[in-house]
């Protein structure tokens, strides 16, 4: 789906726990997620730590939207 969104001019940050698979499928901006059932956080952490992790992941996603990429790129949350 991200291929179609990008094709129509919508930069798309894909948060995925399987970044190489997302790349293989054509995603250009891939943000490393945590795990398949919870890509945007880690429920085993304390709520504050989980939220801080989620903030880093989403910040990486937002950053990727402002970056020119010439090929599929994986962005790691800080």
């Amino acid at each position, binding site marked *: 789906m991200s291929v179609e969104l990008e094709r129509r001019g919508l930069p798309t940050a894909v948060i995925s*726990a*399987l*970044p*190489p*698979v997302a790349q*293989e*499928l054509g995603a250009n901006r891939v943000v490393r997620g*945590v*795990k*398949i*059932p919870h890509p945007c956080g880690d429920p085993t952490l304390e709520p504050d730590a989980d939220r801080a992790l989620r903030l880093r992941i989403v910040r990486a996603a937002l950053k990727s939207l402002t970056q020119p990429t010439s090929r599929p790129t994986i962005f790691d949350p800080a």
Partner: protein
Amino acid sequence: MQLELASFPITHVTLGEATRLDGQHLSVSREQLMEAVANPAIAGVDLQVVHPGESARITQLSDVVEPRVKVAGTGDVFPGLLGPVVSVGSGRTHRLDGLAVMISGDVPWLGASGLFVPRNNFVDTSGPGADLSPHSGTVNLVLRLRFADGFSHDEYQRAVVVAGLRAARQLALATVGLTPADVTIRDLSVSQPALPRVAYAYQVQSQGVFMRTYLYGRMLDELLPTLVHPNELADGAVVAGGLGGGAVKLTTWLHQNNPLVDGMYSRHGAEWNFVGVILHRGHYYQYEDKQRVALQLARSAQLLRADGVAFSLGGGGNNITEVMLAIQECERLGIKTVLLAWEHGGPSGADYPLPFAVPEAAAMVSTGSMDEPLVLPAMDRVCGDSTIRVRPELGGVPIPVDGPLDLSNGYELFGGANPVGWQRTGCIEY
């Protein structure tokens, strides 16, 4: 480690006073069987027999088990579940060849949905559907369980597993003291050292109570690739523990009769040297874990000095990622691979058939597509519930199976995805 696999062919089964083998006819005592499978979570058991070629649709299966018992050698069949954890795979094991114990029954869903449901299913024993499942060709002794209220999924699951194993072993006891029709020697000793060495990377599925596999009685949800001797599979060291299941299900029967294992053995000393089985699971949720599986699998193959590895899939979905990464790693180490894979290319087969692939997967065999709509005629008889539930995400939509079937895909055909290559299915491109 040498195993003598002694086969007693069965062509006919009837219910009778005592459990006795007479030539190729097995008489089964209902009382003895009931005693063997008794469990507080099971309220009642109904026994039916379906012979190959009969027009029957058997529904709501959780497992299929081939009756076996050890008469010599350490341990006994289904170690860790029926008996103590003792090494198996040597000595002599008796099997009732052509007979399968089927555990059937509508397991309560208890509000489960999504991944957490016992998938409803069916098997046809004649007609076009018979060619599509591995379980249509055996004499099927169907134990249809009614479940008692008030137990958990884990308790139902345990009851289902143990019932199948106990029933299977008890029936095999009828062969003790009798002369088998055939004895096959299973031995990995190398008599032709110049032949290439091959291993089988056997992927199973183990993720919670609805999709569980056991090794010597231990659940494999945390499994990293581990070495298993093929004779251990023959003695039931690997058992299917999940409730329900669909097209991709690996039953205990398939673990006992895996055609890739049997095929590697039959060419041992002629085409190659079979060096072992690398048991592993997929569906890990984190990419790094998939990488760990791949690396360890390839390293195990390398330590076995394998020249070639055959791969199969346990379950459907992102488990193919572990396998593809392992194939990539093996090929980089100079180990030649072949993958037996199901296809998922949509109802018209127009889409790319796999969720993930690597360029190194240049040798693949297709087991057919489970996405293809399935049209099957009515069977004369339904063995089990005459409705099954599909669409678990909606709480389960019942569809009748006592007439002709017009299904939008093959997911409910038990074992229909041909995961270890028992059937002759494949895909042809038009």
